[in-house]
């Protein structure tokens, strides 16, 4: 269980929070002008990378506030937490090694706990 630093309440157990998927996906205005494909892209498609990911969290069993986080999905390391009205931090601010401590490759998993 990881620790998440709620920007309103402070550090709490992950079990108090819910994940809201990819962040910075704005609900399209004037959706009537979008074709089916573009609208479908907004409704059904979200990114799920291995590595650095901008995502939304809500302190659902706490203050019920939403906020954003930058997390390395392969190590569960939370690199930054910021409020919704703060600017999206640039990706190059973070060193994306795309490597778990057990040295997994970029794609797939396997037996890589042993240092070569």
């Amino acid at each position, binding site marked *: 269980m*990881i*620790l998440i630093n709620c920007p309103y309440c402070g550090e709490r157990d992950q079990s108090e929070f819910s994940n809201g998927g990819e962040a910075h996906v*704005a609900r399209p205005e004037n959706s009537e002008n979008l074709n089916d494909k573009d609208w479908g892209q907004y409704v059904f498609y979200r990114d799920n990378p291995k590595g650095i990911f901008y995502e939304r969290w809500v302190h659902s069993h706490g203050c*019920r506030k*939403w906020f954003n986080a930058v997390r390395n999905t392969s190590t569960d390391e939370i690199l930054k937490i910021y409020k*919704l009205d703060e600017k999206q931090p640039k990706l190059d601010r973070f060193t994306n090694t795309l490597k778990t401590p057990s040295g997994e490759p970029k794609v797939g998993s396997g*037996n*890589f706990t*042993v240092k070569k």
Partner: protein
Amino acid sequence: MSALDNKKCSYVKKNKKIAFTFDGKKYYGYKGDTIASALLRNNVRLVARSFKYHRPRGIYTCGIEEPNAIVQILNEHNEPNTRATVKQIYDGMKVDSQNRWPSLNLDIGSINNLLSPMFSAGFYYKTFMGPKGFWKRIYEPIIRRTAGLGKPPKEFRSKSIHQNHNVDIVIVGAGLSGLIAARKLIDTEYDVLILEQDSFIGGVLKNSNKVEKINNQEVNKWIKETERLIKTSTNIKILKNSLVTSYNFTNHLIALEDKFAGKAIDTSKSELTLHKIRTTHTILANGHIERFISFRNNDLPGVMLASSFEKYIHRYGVIPETNPVIFTNNSSTVTLLKSLVDLDHKPAAYVDARDKNKIGKKLLTYLKKNNIPFYTNAEIEGCDGNKKVETISIRKNKNKIIKVKSEMLCVSGGINPDIHLFTQSKGLVKWDDKLITFKPDVPFQNTITLGSVSGNYNYEKTNDEINNKLSFLKAKNIEFKIEINDTNNFNIKELWETQHEKKSNWSKSFIDLHNDVTTKDLKQAVVEGFDRIEHLKRFTTNSMGTDQGKISSINSLGIVSKILKKQISEVGTTTYRPPYAPLSFSAIAGRSTYEFYDPQRKTPIHNWHVDNKAVFEDVGQWKRPWYFKEHDAETMHQALQRESKQTRQTAGILDGSTLGKIEIKGKDALEFMNLMYTNPFTKMKPMTSRYALMLGEDGMIKDDGIVCKFNDKHFIATTTSGGAPKVLADMEEYLQTEWPHLQVYVNSITEQFTTFNISGPKSRDIMSKVFTEVDFSNENFPFMTFKVFNYMDTEVRIMRASFTGELGYEIYITPNHGLALWKRIFHHGNVFDLVPYGTETMHLLRAEKGYVVIGQETDGTVTPIDLNFNWMIGKKKKDFIGKRSLTRSDTAREDRKQLVGIIPLDKSEFIEEGQHVVERERIPDPIKTPVEYLGHVSSSYHSPNLNHCIAMAMIKGGNKLMGSKLFVSSSYGTKNIPVEVVSPVFIDPENKRLIS
């Protein structure tokens, strides 16, 4: 020969005799003994039968790593799979062996051993393929009876608790390194928690006499002093009997404390405490585990790990056998040898796989001086005997075999740092060619490894190692000089399996004792193509027992690497996963069991329902009356027919308090409501209400309810009983993330109001009698309006709405007044035969009227258009959630499943909910090609008011099929029921009853 007391050294209290039973026979042990040490004391060597072959097994180790001696504790709610080497005895304890019938000594299942050619690697997958039906009726029941472990617990009621800790430093293991680290942290600024799996501290110091003195102090005195210093310190706490089972992300550890170690369980108290620990730094000083060597019949009772034998001597003061044979490939056995000599019980033979050079002159001289028969460059070929070791065959030089008579064989195949927790924490390990094992390399978290877990087997260097590794902490500057009784040279020689001869089907060389995997199985699996270690493990079940191969998994890597002609580091390890050792589900569940498993929510009228013979159903966490029994013999069907008929004839009342209620307030409330719901609210007049729909962005119906508009800045919405939390959360999410510019506050008021739904032709009369000051005439109180007024010294809100199709009112009042008002309504209603009804009648009545239930007619794939709810969609609104999706090519299809009503052509027939609607009269038997189906029956009831079955169904292109004849499948046979597609509104389609 037999077991003896070690009078010199022991940590069990020999003045306290304890009686216990094993397989019904009474034995005595001492306070502090484990089941294993007590059984050894009583010369009981045969303690278990093995998993697959039912071979006789004895006690192999002296700790958590035990693969053989697992037993059932009969007087602890029949607790199975308990490690005899860990569990302490107490007076009156009743222990049984497992997996044997009729008795441990004579086990019928051992015939499996003779059939063993059948049970080779992957035999489950290969053997039980056919004929069809055999698996379920024959193979599985037999396998379930003969394979496996203990019997399930009985009358078990968990009372374990969870406890949270937040500390600066956790030390796992109170052995030599752990205690020295602790002493350096006494009265420092850190909050320290020490976790020790045993009921005493000291670890290796008590398990052997490897360490002689610390700072010129006797080891025992030093431990006592340390314990006293820790106890009197302000910053360090020790938890004994606490096993760390997992090391998770962000330095989060889980430890399981056995509160009744060595005591009879008090069933009124909690047996286990699960400690959830969050720390800044984790010091792993959890030591090492000895591994074995494979040879012929290396599983016979009497074979034991050398260090375990040593532990029994020093920790428990029992010498399991006076003249054992020692077989080793390293120097860690020297202290065992010396201990035996000091106790005047010379080993029958000392067999060392190493050459004289590696053994060293010092030891060779010692062996010669004490006249111990010793063999260098030698191996154990195997051992023989009837349910115990009797003869041991030693291979001296290439082909010469010498037989030695002894009843025990102490084996040491080397030492593995216990890297389980380290790898759980995602640390990297690396292969050490000198130690011939894996040891921790790069930690991922704030993890420090000390002592043998870090690969430091030299106790003299412990102090320097700790100084070095803890230098970043503000630790105390105290030094500890450690004197050892032993060589500090480990000098191991690689040896996984000895050369041995197959003498009979009984000859087996095991790699996994727990799951009965032989080295032959490993080799065969590799031949069959399972050359990846993770595949091999699953195919052979190697190291998949409850001991997780603690004494053997590295050995299997060694053997496989030899077959594959690879380095062990290339073969790699399998993944170490939590828990470290089996832990009871009851510990994980904690207090969340039985009535605490899920909270129950009850309405203020609950007790009245109970008194009036309500049968309850669970709706989310709510207990809702399902139906009321007029008398005990009344069936559910009879109750429903009575309740529904009565409601349409006079009046009925439903406790609707569970309905979700959300208050929406703020400057921009109107705009927000227009966005959240499909309905247009702008032109809606104040103090009116409206049936409203909420969609997802995909255009599918998510929830429904009635929205009351007080004014443009104040709304109250009801939701379905189960959907309230989700609707509130969704509203919050959109307010915070998409429309932060809107000034709106949403708040759950579900429990702030008790709600009653009264309906039926007489409801107006009853309401007029209860609320005498209100004019309930149709002109003054029309359909879909509401009034708020003072009543019973509180505020009451009454809305004219109906979910039955009859004239109806919804009453909202504070819960404190709920029951009084409910009783008052009945006081006036009895004259009109007012009947209480439950959720099932509610469903029946709404189905007669063609009203849908979210979650019954809909399933997350239904749009409002599919339900013919076009009139509810504010088409002129610029936007609302899901609006764009309603014109997607897929949602706009005309052949989507649409809501229709269906009635059987033969009015005496009944349609079942969930059945398929098809065009065919019969379902072919057997079905060769898929039967095309049009849809499914979503609701079906026997209508007391129409006196036949009415049903609702979602069928493809349903709107165009009105009046056509179709069929509905049935669970009774292949013949389908002919039905007619009709409008889903069966009663009062003109809404005369509703609006007049």
